[in-house]
């Protein structure tokens, strides 16, 4: 111990350069102030939008979770009763389980399929532009139209897919009416819908990787797998992280349109995702307080997930050592 004074040895390379230019004079300060105001006015509309349409509703939803609210202006404080009800509600538990299964299957599936497609369409193959467009096309269609189209294709007995299977002696599969198949069917349709979008994101990540790295690896005799594992994958990690987070959020908070059109949450609750259950509780049964409590739990789960992802990736800077 040398005394009460601590000295911090900051590496010179990480020290911010000191600006001793005339800009720090009065004129420079005035300019910085004006720019600050301009930034403030530009940010204000968006910030107000976020405040009014996201932050305040989120706080209100958390508060409403402690009330019984019937949708007709009748409000009574019930403490944590909605949360107690949640753990005793078999339908909520079923919806949570369905959501977890949906998440565990869909997130890796979308990730892997879109990465493989990106690797494929990165190659110099004939009509690659048309192939990329075709793979991206489902994403530009309304989910409602997607749902109706697949409902038509998957109809019992007379649907195109069942008629095709009948040619091979396979009869009587109810893709949207049998709980054994419905969630799997929804997962496959979701992959088909989302893969093009994430393929494009992966593709942009792949195209940022310098070609010289691959050339050097080839000269060194690296196999295709070695090139992928030692060059592509490490260089693609920031993109992969972005895809992982956005897919997860999209899976937890999305899917409503598709489920509503395809199965209505059925049969027997087999496709009742939490987001669909919240909608049912609020708008079909008028249980606004209970719906708000479930929504709060969902937000909490997403916050924990996002915090976890940011922590293990040091705020997204995966390549910083």
């Amino acid at each position: 111990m040398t005394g009460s004074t601590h000295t911090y040895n900051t590496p010179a390379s990480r020290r911010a350069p000191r600006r001793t230019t005339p800009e720090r004079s009065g004129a420079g300060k005035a300019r910085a102030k004006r720019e600050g105001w301009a930034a403030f006015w530009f940010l204000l509309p968006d910030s107000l939008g976020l405040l009014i349409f996201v932050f305040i509703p989120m706080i209100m939803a958390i508060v409403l979770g402690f009330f019984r609210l019937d949708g007709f202006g009748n409000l009574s404080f019930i403490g944590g009763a909605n949360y107690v009800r949640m753990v005793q509600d078999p339908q909520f538990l079923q919806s949570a389980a369905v959501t977890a299964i949906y998440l565990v299957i869909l997130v890796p599936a979308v990730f892997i399929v879109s990465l493989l497609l990106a690797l494929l369409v990165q190659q110099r193959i004939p009509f690659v532009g048309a192939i990329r467009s075709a793979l991206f096309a489902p994403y530009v269609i309304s989910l409602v139209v997607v749902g109706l189209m697949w409902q038509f294709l998957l109809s019992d007995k007379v649907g195109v897919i069942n008629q095709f299977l009948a040619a091979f002696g396979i009869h009587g599969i109810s893709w949207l009416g049998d709980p054994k198949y419905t969630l799997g069917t929804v997962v496959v349709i979701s992959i088909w819908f989302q893969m093009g979008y994430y393929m494009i994101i992966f593709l942009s990540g792949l195209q940022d990787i310098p070609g010289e790295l691959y050339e050097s690896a080839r000269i060194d005799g690296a196999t295709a797998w070695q090139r992928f594992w030692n060059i592509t994958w490490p260089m693609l990690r920031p993109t992969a992280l972005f895809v992982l987070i956005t897919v997860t959020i999209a899976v937890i908070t999305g899917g409503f349109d598709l489920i509503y059109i395809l199965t209505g949450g059925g049969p027997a609750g087999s496709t009742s995702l939490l987001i669909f259950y919240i909608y049912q509780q609020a708008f079909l049964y008028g249980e606004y307080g209970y719906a708000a409590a479930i929504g709060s739990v969902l937000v909490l789960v997403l916050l924990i997930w996002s915090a976890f992802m940011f922590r293990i990736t040091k705020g997204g800077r995966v390549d910083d050592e």
Partner: protein
Amino acid sequence: MERTFTRRTLITGAAATATMAGLGALSGCASGASGASAPLQFWQFYAPQSQSAPDLKAQNDWFQKAVGDWNKRHKQQVENVFIPNFTDPSNTRLATAFASGSGPDIFLISPGDFLRYYNGGALLDLAPYMTKEAIDDFNPNVLETRRVGKGIYGLPMEVEPLAMFYSVPAWEKAHLSEGDIPKTWDQMLDVAHKLTTQSQSGLVFETVPGYFQNFTWYPWMWQGHGDVVDSHQKPSFDSKAVTQALDLFGRSVATGVAPRTDPAAGDVPGAFANGYAAMWQSGIWQVAGFRGTQPKFDYGVFPLPTPPGGISKTVLGGWAWCVNARGRNPEAAAKFVVETVGSMSQESITRIYDWCTVAKSDMPPRASVDKMMVAKDAFKNPKLKYFHDVILPTGRGEPRYPPVVYKAISDAIQQVQAAGGNAAGQAQKGQAAIEAFMETYKGGALK
């Protein structure tokens, strides 16, 4: 003095203007129907709209005329507000309007929603505005589910019973005749088996979970003398009648005679005409449906078959006119509703007659209208006559249950029908859920 603008000033000003405009737009999100003198809003799904299909045009004209007649005579005006997909549970417009304190003054609801609105204090008692003669004129079976004590919280405009519809061509192809029309559940499943092919479902029960599926299931439960709650409001879901009704839906799917999803997306005339279904439990509105889309198709109707020792029962649906107790002028709204569809004036009686015969093909909710329909030979269509003479007398009004009870019933139906669950076990689970709810329930009686 000339003033110059720098680029920065211009951009800052534009950003500030955009912000103010945004705030102005937000303030415009408030209800547009404010002010006591503004017309009262009547939310429904018939008018005003510009569809050219004859039945839709007739329904639009009927609503416009009903409101127009009132507006000619009264200072407080009423306006029709067309709400697309009003009957679709996914349409949250009515629910969100009430939740935000800007519900319509007058609106239509079905019995399935009645208790939610009544218990929320949203419905005005119309009885003080009606004469005793007019109250007695309504079919008690239908009015009962809109009453609490002596109060009347909705006036039915129509009665829509359920029955079994069958395709005559499919029947003939399977070498069946009118003599094979089933009277019991077992006979129904047996006939359905004969009608089932690779592309055709022999029998269709509603498969989509929701209020409508519950509505179609209730009569099967009643046929065995069962009910959800007894006359003392005690849950009675765990019963033989409930178990066998659940089992009927489960067995029909398990044996392959009924589909797991609605053929032709629920379009009965289309499914019959294309050979996708041969028998289908549905409502009287299909008579108008066939007339509109498959006028030459040969179909038949018969009452819902019964279980051993059971009684013939069907359910009577239909929409009712209600008044928002917290609307801008509830008294005028109540007078409008009563004068238009609930008074003993010849105009009111004729109006309902027109609704049930010209605009739609429905059974009348009132004795006076029934008398007029018989006198004017409105039942000359044999299908309507059959509904009137044979099916309607076995009807019971669509029951009203709070959402938690409705959900417990829906879950039981779905578990047995779609997931192959044990009917007795599901009846017990439903009973437990309903009992837990009824312990603390305060509100209108379940019936």
